[in-house]
């Protein structure tokens, strides 16, 4: 008898989603879908508003990664101005973006994913949370909280607020960095690096236990997309597109991000509010690609910072080339956090970083503006069109998580086929279905609120749609 298993909501992710598993007559998983159940409408309700409100308005879509939206939005506005913003402003924006990637990665690794890694996928669900980790290994949990705090405090130091600062504005930033704040931020770097050293030691001591997950957690061929700098190295603020195929060949390189519409297109499905971007040349759904930490490390020639490159060598010698398993997003996140701290240190030692020339003033000189940056979860694209008075007429946001939508659906199916047995539902198997989503760290227009129901409910529904069994945990 064919059945549908529904995991609703998916827990320990940012935003609200549901997973359905379709079982065939033999109780074997036939199909799996990752449904995003919330609708935001930002692209529509911004129409008619002045464009210079956009960075802060669009940032309200998210409470975890608002800085990424601020930066992509401000870059799109810079493009409307058609000006080159001052170099110190670019470096300050870059600094805040790195701080945000640091805090967001720390949130995913320690708060959302570590409970699965620490206690194991089959552990008692009551224990799979950061509080239980803190009870068993206080130092590890405190490290996570502190690391996230370092990132958040840098955002606050620069922008005056940890969440939704309005410091990043069209044309640059609205206040320069003070010498005291520079020293304050620099002071946190050694502690952050020490925490990450301990995190890597813990990770390497335990990662062998997850070989089945490495083999099945979204371990498939796909393309990888992201931005790289002019040398082809890791870049998060301003670079050009690079696309790598499953065999590691660079198939697109140094493509101007303003030409994103030549590279990708978006498809829609009726069963989810999340779109499906794909590589235009390959069509839908063959043009599946992945973005985010794993993709960025796959496509980059190097990180170009000492400690991150040391760990990247270790990463590349231990995984396939390119690293195909989505389980490796966790490791990639740790490497990127090291990079963020090292790169911030470099930026803060730049002789121009305290310059007060941090903003360009202009009127709109173009009716079409595109801003692209790397958010914690991948490439983020803001595209605005305005009328002659500077009012928004159209917007398109391609959110980092959305790029991974095809891959996440494929990964859910792979994990479900490997672990879920329709005859006997086990908590560990269903947790793995959720855990593969956590590896991608999706941010499903993160800041919306659920309807209050927090428990995971699994329904068994027969072929006629009748509820056969239901369990809540």
């Amino acid at each position, binding site marked *: 008898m064919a059945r549908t298993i529904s995991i609703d909501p998916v827990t320990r992710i940012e935003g609200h989603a549901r997973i359905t598993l379709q079982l065939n007559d033999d109780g074997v998983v036939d199909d799996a879908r990752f449904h995003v159940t919330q609708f935001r409408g930002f692209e529509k309700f911004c129409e*008619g508003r*002045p464009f210079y409100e956009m*960075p802060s*308005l669009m940032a*309200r879509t998210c409470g975890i990664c608002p800085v990424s939206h601020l930066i992509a939005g401000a870059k799109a506005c810079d493009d409307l101005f058609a000006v080159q913003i001052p170099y110190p402003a670019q470096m300050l924006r870059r600094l805040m973006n790195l701080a945000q990637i640091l805090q967001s990665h720390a949130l995913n690794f320690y708060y959302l994913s570590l409970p699965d890694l620490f206690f194991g996928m089959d552990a008692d669900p009551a224990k799979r949370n950061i509080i239980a980790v803190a009870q068993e290994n206080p130092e590890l949990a405190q490290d996570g909280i502190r690391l996230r705090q370092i990132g958040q405090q840098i955002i606050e130091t620069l922008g005056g607020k940890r969440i939704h600062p*309005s410091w990043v*504005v069209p044309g640059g930033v609205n206040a320069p960095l003070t010498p005291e704040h520079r020293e304050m931020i620099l002071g946190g770097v050694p502690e952050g690096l020490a925490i990450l050293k301990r995190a890597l030691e813990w990770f390497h001591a335990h990662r062998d236990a997850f070989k089945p997950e490495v083999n099945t957690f979204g371990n498939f061929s796909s393309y990888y997309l992201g931005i790289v700098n002019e040398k082809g190295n890791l870049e998060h603020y301003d670079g050009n597109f690079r696309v790598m195929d499953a065999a590691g060949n660079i198939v697109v390189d140094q493509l101007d991000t303003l030409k994103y519409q030549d590279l990708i297109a978006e498809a829609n499905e009726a069963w989810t509010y999340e779109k499906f971007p794909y590589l235009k040349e390959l069509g839908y759904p063959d043009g599946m690609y992945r973005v985010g930490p794993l993709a960025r490390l796959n496509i980059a020639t190097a990180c170009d910072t000492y400690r991150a490159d040391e760990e990247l060598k270790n990463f590349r010698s231990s995984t396939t080339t390119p690293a195909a398993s989505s389980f490796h997003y966790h490791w990639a996140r740790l490497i990127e956090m090291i990079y963020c701290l090292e790169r911030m240190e470099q930026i803060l030692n730049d002789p121009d970083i305290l310059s007060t020339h941090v903003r360009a003033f202009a009127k709109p000189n173009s009716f079409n503006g595109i801003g692209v940056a790397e958010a914690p979860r991948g490439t983020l694209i803001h595209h605005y069109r305005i009328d002659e*008075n500077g*009012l928004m007429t159209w917007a398109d946001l391609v959110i980092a998580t959305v790029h991974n939508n095809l891959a996440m659906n494929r990964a859910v199916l792979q994990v479900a086929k490997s672990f879920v047995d329709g005859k006997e539902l086990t908590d560990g198997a269903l947790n793995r279905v959720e855990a593969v989503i956590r590896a991608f760290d999706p941010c499903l227009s993160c800041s919306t609120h659920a309807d209050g129901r927090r428990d995971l409910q699994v329904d068994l529904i027969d072929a006629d749609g009748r509820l056969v069994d239901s369990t809540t945990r």
Partner: protein
Amino acid sequence: MDEQPIAIKTLTIDGKEVGARSGDTILQVAQEHGIWIPTLCFLDGLTAYGSCRICMVELEGNNRLFPACVTKVYEGMVVIIHSPRLEHYRRVIVEMLLSERPHICSVCVSNGHCELQTMAQLLGVTSVRYPYLMRKHDVDASNHRFLHDDNRCILCGRCVRVCSEIEGAHTWAFSGRGVESRIVTDLDQPWGESESCTGCSKCVHVCPTGALIEKGRSVAEMAKRRQFLPYLTVMRKEDAE
């Protein structure tokens, strides 16, 4: 010298005995004595208008409420500024203002510099009991320097008064009635096409919210500068004399 001696009145404001000149309003006297009465449509330097009703006070022996900005003092007046009834009405007024237009502070250029927002905070308005009307008002961005956003307007009329009383241009006026009321330039033409507007920006700087703003200001960047107004008013009076 045959100047008339100024008549002094004695009154009580919230239990404090104060002296006032004949012809003063309750608000003037209170401000001179450092007593705070909440105001929104009132602005020092412009004609008091009494439209927002935030400054309503109670007078002992009278069941009506009186707007402090336009009510003249009299001998023996007993004014009550703080009472449960007044606090209730003031909060209701602010809540109605907030619910009438889509006042979304977090994405407003005047966030942190807005008198409506400050008033809500001072009066302890932590939620709005009325459903937001959420009517969509078009933004007039036709002026190359300024922007008129009806979505943030509370119809206080400061722009209308400053334009006629101080600048003498009479560009701004009210149009419509009730919930359809709007401020308009000239004969409801786009601001950029107004022939009477001198581009002086006084209306922008007296506006208490983000309804009239300078273009190019990002969220939370539109601080208003209105220190000029009392000096201008005094100078205009001196010129007239």
